[in-house]
């Protein structure tokens, strides 16, 4: 096992414009926000984004002009409503949006895991979602039934925020897992941002809690509160106030201001945390 710890800007430099970037977490849970900020700060362009359920992560990257294409099964802010920039950009055809379902994303990713060339299934036949995805259909060599060939999805890099890991990238993801293990296993490279880096010895008392092992991880970045304003159980819950504020200003067309003030005018995510320190404090759970 190798020490894989680097600084966030070093990790971000490994990402090339045009690459397919998979984002972990789900909607407003455990999104790698510090890394999203860094992608914007470093001016990445033409990224293809893949995420099961996106929210402010996707919305910010769209507003910053970092994305060409999104593959997702959902982009919205859950109980809070629509993702304003996502909606505008898709309706205005500024970006390409491939609407997936959970299945079409998972099947494409899982194909890598079992060295399948594709996943042959009957799911989604007859839906307009499948029509839009434009996947091939064919006859089963076994039953002659009509099947969809769900092609492999193989992101260049996955970005996943975790609660804790060691310097080798043995990670303990807690709370809602979404498809983060699947993303890590099927992406060519994996960058993990983590609330805390702990000694490996700490992982050996409960090895069953290490759900993402170092064998799938390439890069580790320490980033406390790195998911704010999304949640990171058990450390802090999602900051619905901050998210509402973001949506309000975005609806008024002021996302540019938000990005300038919270990201590009600052040197680092620490600067952001300092700027919104009252927000962070409000959603932080005392010792958990």
């Amino acid at each position, binding site marked *: 096992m190798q020490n894989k710890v680097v600084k966030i800007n070093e990790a971000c430099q490994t990402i090339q414009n045009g690459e397919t970037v998979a984002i972990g977490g*789900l*909607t407003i*849970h455990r999104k790698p926000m510090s890394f999203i900020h860094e992608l914007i700060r470093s001016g990445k362009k033409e990224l293809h984004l893949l995420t*099961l*359920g996106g929210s402010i992560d996707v919305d910010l990257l769209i507003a910053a002009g970092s994305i060409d294409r999104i593959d*997702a*099964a*959902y*982009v*919205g802010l*859950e*109980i*809070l409503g*629509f*993702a304003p920039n*996502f*909606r505008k950009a*898709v*309706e205005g055809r500024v970006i390409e*949006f491939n*609407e*997936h*379902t*959970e*299945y*079409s994303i*998972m099947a494409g990713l*899982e194909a890598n895991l079992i060295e399948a060339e594709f996943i042959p299934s009957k*799911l*989604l036949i*007859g*839906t*307009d*979602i499948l029509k839009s995805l434009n996947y091939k259909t064919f006859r089963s060599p076994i039953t002659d039934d009509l099947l969809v060939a769900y092609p492999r999805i193989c992101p260049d890099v996955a970005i996943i925020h975790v609660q804790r890991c060691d310097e080798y990238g043995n990670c303990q993801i*807690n*709370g*809602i*897992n*979404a*498809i*983060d*293990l*699947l993303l890590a296993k099927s992406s060519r490279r994996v960058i993990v941002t983590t609330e805390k880096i702990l000694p490996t010895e700490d992982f050996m008392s409960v090895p069953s809690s290490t759900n993402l092992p170092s064998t799938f991880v390439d890069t580790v970045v320490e980033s406390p509160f790195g998911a704010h304003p999304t*949640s990171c*159980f*058990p450390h802090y*819950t*999602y900051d*619905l*106030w901050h998210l*509402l504020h973001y949506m309000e200003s975005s609806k008024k067309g002021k996302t540019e201001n938000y990005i300038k003030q919270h990201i590009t005018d600052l040197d680092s995510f620490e600067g952001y945390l300092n700027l919104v320190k009252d927000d962070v404090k*409000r*959603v*932080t*759970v*005392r010792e958990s």
Partner: protein
Amino acid sequence: MKLRKFTSDEIMITCMSREIRNGDIAIQGLTTPMAIISYYLAKATHAPQTTIMQLAGNILTYTKAPPQISLLFNEFEAMRRSVHIGTQTEVYEVIFKRLESIVEFFRPAQIDMFGNTNNSLIGSDISKLRLPGGFGIADVAALYPRTFYYCPRHEKRVFVENVDHIGGLGLRTKSESHQRRDIHIISELGVFEIEHESRRMRLSSIHPGIKIEDIKENTSFEILTPEKTQQTSPPTELELQLIREKIDPLNIRRLEYLSGKTRENALLNILDKELSLTI
């Protein structure tokens, strides 16, 4: 119209709860407070052996007394009662294996007379309104022997003749595999199902205080009605008490009915209450 002792969300939740059979596996999707309330209600009344999978199904929870739902600490509350932490792929593995036992309530943006649903795009080809997306609805709607939709707002723009974009498959085609599926719709006005023979939406029961005309006025197509309309049994005292006092005293369920500024204010109100109580 006589005074109702219960609200629309309460009778809807009661109807949803009653669809759950003892021993079912109930899956909570994204942002569906009424669904999770109905699961807790069922578990506290007629279906104590219900298995509940929360937070997009990722977290398998265990509880004896019905817990109180939260807006701000949704994940924290689920984790406090978690017996197992799964993954999204595992949720599908459970679904594929246990199709007969799964209960999952979806909220469609549009539903049509055949039971097709849409959470993707609204409008004509030229100017489409982009919705957040159906997440997993289209995957499983056609697989479940029993598919459930709930519509807190029974409006013409929700109950449309043909959905603009097909996500969840109704019984539009004649294929036998679809025929065997039961599709149930619970709205603020009544309970409906897709009739197997005609493959059209039919009224099963109308909520107390609602008239057939209310349904007609708020639906873009003709809903089949039986000769003698059955009335939905109202919530019992116990059901109302559980919903109001035990499961959702913060009235999070009302958010499913609100929009715009009213909704935002209600939301902030709940958040402030929760914050003062919990952290």
